[in-house]
């Protein structure tokens, strides 16, 4: 099956080459696209040097717009599976391969890699969220689960794999800013089969989260508004 792995990246020059290398090792048959979200450092050059195709947005548009660009490339390039992971080294490409396998086996239309694991199963370098992040996670998890009547543990995960149905949906409409959380809700409400798979994630290797407590509060508030509106959005017609 033709598989595209895309990596949205904004100023990730230190980690991008390693991430591309990991993806190549884990998914040797897949094409790799880096969506450079208006980086001002050498992200695009390093990605090209590492052998990836680079789609450079002329200015920073937010992670949602970057992810949508990847889905659009997947849809237009006739890929059957489209997967993505973060560029900061938190995500393990080998785990992404498990997500891709789920889509290839047609067990779901969209698979989300969840960083939350069963208790007592944790390892030393596993992901641990700080307080404000956990609060937001709990809230999103609760609201999305209520809205979709399906249990989700990690609604903000940027590690996903989708098939063409979801590529089409996300190419048409995708929130530019609150992409991750809202897209889970939208996919389920539009009738897609969305599943979660537990994956191992690392502490972020490079860079830092953009979320300060004040920003998190603002982000949580905005996302809640988006989810509330999303609940009442009309169902799109199944196209083509």
């Amino acid at each position, binding site marked *: 099956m033709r598989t595209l792995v895309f990596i949205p990246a904004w100023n990730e020059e230190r980690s991008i080459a390693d991430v591309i290398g990991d993806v190549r090792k884990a998914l040797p048959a897949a094409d790799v*696209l880096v*969506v*450079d979200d208006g980086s001002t450092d050498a992200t695009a050059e390093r990605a*090209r040097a590492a052998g990836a*195709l*680079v*789609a*450079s*947005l*002329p*200015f920073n*548009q937010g992670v949602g*717009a970057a992810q*949508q*660009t990847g889905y*659009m*490339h997947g849809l*237009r390039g006739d890929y059957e599976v489209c997967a993505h992971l973060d560029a900061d080294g938190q995500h393990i490409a080998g785990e992404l391969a498990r997500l891709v396998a789920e889509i290839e086996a047609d067990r779901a239309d969209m698979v989300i890699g969840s960083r939350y694991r069963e208790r007592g199963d944790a390892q030393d370098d596993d992901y641990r969220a700080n307080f404000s992040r956990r609060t937001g996670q709990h809230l999103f998890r609760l609201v999305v689960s209520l809205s979709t009547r399906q249990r989700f543990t990690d609604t903000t995960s940027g590690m996903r794999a989708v098939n063409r149905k979801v590529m089409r949906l996300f190419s048409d409409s995708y929130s*530019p800013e609150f992409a991750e959380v809202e897209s889970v809700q939208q996919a389920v409400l539009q009738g897609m089969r969305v599943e979660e798979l537990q994956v191992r994630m690392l502490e972020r290797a490079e860079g830092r989260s953009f979320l300060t407590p004040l920003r998190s509060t603002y982000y949580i508030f905005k996302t809640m508004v988006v989810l509330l509106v999303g609940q009442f959005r009309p169902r799109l017609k199944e196209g083509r």
Partner: protein
Amino acid sequence: MPAILAAAGGAEPVVRLTAQSRIIAAVLAIAFMLMILELIRRHKLHERYSVIWFVAGIAMLAGAAFPDLLRLLAEALGVRDVTIALFSLLFVLLLGLALSFSVIMSRQSAQITRLAQELALERARDQAENPDSSRGE
């Protein structure tokens, strides 16, 4: 106390616009509309967005020329003071304008995002077709 309440309850709306303030308002309204015409002529304002400003200018002119309109407005709103009626109307009008600008801005921001995405995909296609040529930035 009862006398004041009675007076407040039964009073007719008072027009407090003097001749001087009416002339100033009329001159301002005409100058405002001339400015809009000039902006359109110099292609600094899109015709599409000028209509609402013309309506505002004409309303200003009408209020200055026929103060009775303002009195009717005050009565309709149940306000005793014409100036308060005027300011309330102005406030609602500006609120509506600000909202319509937000809507226009949102639409344009979505269009800009699409343009940026199309450009990015075009760049990737270029690279796929000429993998060796180094890009001049």
